[in-house]
């Protein structure tokens, strides 16, 4: 059996508020296999987003380990963690987080610039641009590439964010309520897009959601309550 692409082992996370310690995660264990679609459900404050940030190496755990392809990655130097985050994981957020000064194409191309030196990127710029264009075409935005985020609808912005997350070919996408800010019709189209990409590219998805119907379509549902996994 191959190692899960992403795993959490005994993750705890405690924030300090004044003199008080606030435990947010209390020993979470979780595996996400290759190409697996996992839904993470739970009430607000259950620790879903915190777990996502810890798994994405944005926030260090207080205790426990995060494993990428079976390799513990917590404790690596900043640059190496950034490199791993870039190559191994893609993020999709509820509020898209596109750079407003850049066009859709530039937002996607930006993902390819994160760990490449300026010189290397410049040498490879035509190919990089072609990859970004292909990715945008793939998510159905061929005619919106030159538009800035302010000129795009919510669904289009989320598609740009998905294209950006996919550009460097990550093994897992961490999506934090990707449809939480969209109307139902647009949300449905974005969900369809994610499922098709998962099937087509064998990318694992860890989806934080409140939507039971969306969760029911996933391979596995993990439920959290008060910082612990109660089902999954």
């Amino acid at each position, binding site marked *: 059996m191959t190692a899960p692409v992403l795993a959490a082992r005994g993750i705890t996370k405690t924030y300090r508020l004044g003199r008080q310690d606030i435990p947010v995660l209390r020993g979470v264990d979780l595996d996400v296999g290759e190409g697996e679609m996992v839904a993470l459900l739970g009430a607000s404050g259950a620790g879903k*987003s915190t777990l996502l*940030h810890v798994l*994405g190496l*944005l*926030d260090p755990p207080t205790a426990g380990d995060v494993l990428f392809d079976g390799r513990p990655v917590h404790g690596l*130097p*900043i*640059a190496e963690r*950034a*490199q791993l*985050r*870039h*190559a191994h994981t893609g*993020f999709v*957020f*509820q*509020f898209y*987080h*596109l*750079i407003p*000064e*850049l066009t859709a194409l*530039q937002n996607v191309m*930006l*993902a*390819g*610039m*994160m*760990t*490449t*030196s*300026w010189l*290397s*990127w*410049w040498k490879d710029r035509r190919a990089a641009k072609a990859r970004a264009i292909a990715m945008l075409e793939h998510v159905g935005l061929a005619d919106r590439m030159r538009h800035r985020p302010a000129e795009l609808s919510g669904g289009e912005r989320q598609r740009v964010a998905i294209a*950006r997350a996919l550009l460097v070919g990550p093994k897992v996408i961490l999506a934090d309520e990707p449809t939480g800010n969209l109307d139902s019709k647009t949300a449905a189209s974005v969900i369809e897009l994610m499922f098709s990409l998962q099937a087509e590219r064998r990318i694992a998805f860890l989806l934080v959601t409140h939507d039971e119907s969306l969760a029911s379509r996933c391979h596995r549902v993990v439920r959290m309550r008060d910082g612990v996994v109660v089902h999954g």
Partner: protein
Amino acid sequence: MTPGALVRIASRIRELATQRAYGPFLATRYLLTRPINLLGMLGVTLSVWALVVVVSLFSGVIVVIEEHVHAASADVSIGSLPAGTSWSKLHDAIADDPNVRGQAPRLVHFGMLNRPGVRPPPPILPGRGALHGGDQPFLFVLGVEPAAEANVTGFADWLRDPAIPADLRVADPDDPLRTIDSTATVLVGFERMKRDGLKRGDEVVLTSGRVYQAADGNKTLEQIPMTMRVAGAYKSMHGGFDGNNVFVDRATLNRALFADDPDTIQEVAVRLRDDAKLWETADRLQRTVARITDRGDGRAYGSVQTWRQKNATFLASIEHQRALLKIVLIVIMVVAAFLMLATLSMMVTEKTSDIGILTAMGGTPIGVMQIFLSCGLVITGLGIVTGIGTGCLTAVHLEEVRQFVLWTTGVDLFPLDVYNLDRVPSSIDPWWLLQVAGMALGTGFLVSALPAFRAARHDPLVSLRSS
């Protein structure tokens, strides 16, 4: 420091040295989409421009003033000669020096010049007075031999300056100090002649004095008034010299002041063949003078000064003014730096929302810092290039700028007659340009580093959550 910490520091330095592509890309986009950054650039441009233009102007003025001071002075002056120094012996010894082209003996005394029965005028030229000698009635009285003097300074040309009107000119430039109606004559600086309303042939009283030591050791000052006629005006390029010096015949002054020692000299003015050997010649002449004036009493007599040493206080005061001006102008750069700091800080505050997603995509704190540092350095760099470019252009065309301002507003920014100039001078010093660029770059780096550092320390999760 632990080995682990050293490794981390080395890793950070290595990372800082490797600019990732997103840094310059985002920095460019941020700059292009925020016209307010132009303010910071304009501030740097303005301060660099001011430092280049004003210092080039002042340097030009210093070059011209040095030329004028040099033209009014002998290359080397030998003074502090002891009483009874034999002029003929000293003359022969100085003439033996291979770099001496000419020499002239002088008496140098103090005096006051006024019309008979009229007290010397009070100060009437404040401001310009210091430069033109108009704010005090005292003068240096130089007893000279005109023919010899013409060999060591521009003395002969000073009498023929076209700016001197006919009624103030000397009657015979080849013998300017010849008597008028059997009365000894005095040559007066052009500016002082104009100020005092003197004409050629006017009767004046040149009052000098000397100290007598009585048998009981008491010293008394004896006033020595000399009635003379004005021989005419002279005009060197150095207004300070013209205002403070009058020339009289050496023999006449000698009779009045040192009747018991007809061959007394107090100073020898020397012109050199090769200016490049000024200092070594001065050293050599110092040894020559010490040998000739040696009286076997163990004391050194005679002091040899180059024209720079003789005018050192005056030249240093101008240099001091330039230094003060630089300090004032650097303050403008500091103000510009604060302007840049404000615009960059605003940008960092606006862009904190981007920091979260950049980190999520694989960015690092140092990478984030590089974005904002790049913005600041680009603003600074453009400001420096524009400031130095426009500054040099303005410095080269300062006279045209002066004339334009004079034509449009009637304000003369730089009155040329104060400095005896025919156009506004400027001297662009490449070393100063480098210094200005270095200062601006250093300041720009500092004020960029502060907001960049703040951006790097920003917690990416805060911006991800706050949205």
